[in-house]
């Protein structure tokens, strides 16, 4: 039983817990524990103990578990919310980590790659990408020379050119 709860409910310390997802996790884990483990396993044990009489017991057991399910979900949801500041204060220890280690905790790609974060931050800056024109240069070799050539050409015309250097912190 504890194993099932651990799989469904555990979060790493410091990770944010979302209410809706937490309720779903609680319901799923409780249904598995109460429905599968308690009812089925205890039916097996009762069968071993009393022979065929277990069928009569199962019906009453089913109703009690159905009553226990919402009680369990609501109690744990409220209890976890109430205990959260205490857990933060007494249970977890704050540990200093340096910036490289912190950046290593991020993955290079998300599970579902999209531009939501970029759009959000661009909206905060009043969408500067819509006011300027871009030339994209991509490929394997020769990007740098092409860029230099384009820059020298465009610098001799009326276009203003801004060169942006992007430095990465990727380790090789």
């Amino acid at each position, binding site marked *: 039983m504890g194993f099932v*709860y651990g*799989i469904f*409910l555990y979060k790493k310390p410091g990770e944010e817990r979302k209410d809706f997802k937490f309720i779903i996790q609680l319901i799923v*884990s409780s249904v598995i*524990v109460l429905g599968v483990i308690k009812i089925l396993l205890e039916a097996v044990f009762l069968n071993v103990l009393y022979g065929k009489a277990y069928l009569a017991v199962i019906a009453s057991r089913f109703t009690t578990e159905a009553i*226990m399910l919402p009680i369990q979900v609501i109690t*744990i949801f409220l*209890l976890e919310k109430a205990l959260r500041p205490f857990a933060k204060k007494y249970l977890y220890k704050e*540990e*200093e980590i340096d910036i490289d280690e912190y950046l290593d905790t991020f993955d290079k790609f998300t599970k579902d790659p999209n531009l939501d974060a970029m759009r959000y931050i661009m909206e905060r800056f009043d969408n500067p990408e819509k006011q300027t024109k871009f030339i994209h240069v991509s490929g394997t070799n020769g990007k740098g020379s092409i860029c230099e050539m384009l820059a020298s050409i465009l610098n001799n015309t009326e276009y203003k050119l801004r060169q942006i250097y992007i430095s990465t912190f990727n380790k090789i």
Partner: protein
Amino acid sequence: MTKLTLTKGKKIILSAMLLSILLVLSRFLSIKSTFLVISFSFIPMMLAGIYLRT
């Protein structure tokens, strides 16, 4: 930057506390009949799942 961690000693203490609560709730503060047992022993079990993983 800071990171929250749970030390090993605190893990052991927390699991011991939860286990003692579990025993009290399931053995003494429960309603028992021949087949049916109603108890609140799910509370420490689920809290252990929340804080300590499997």
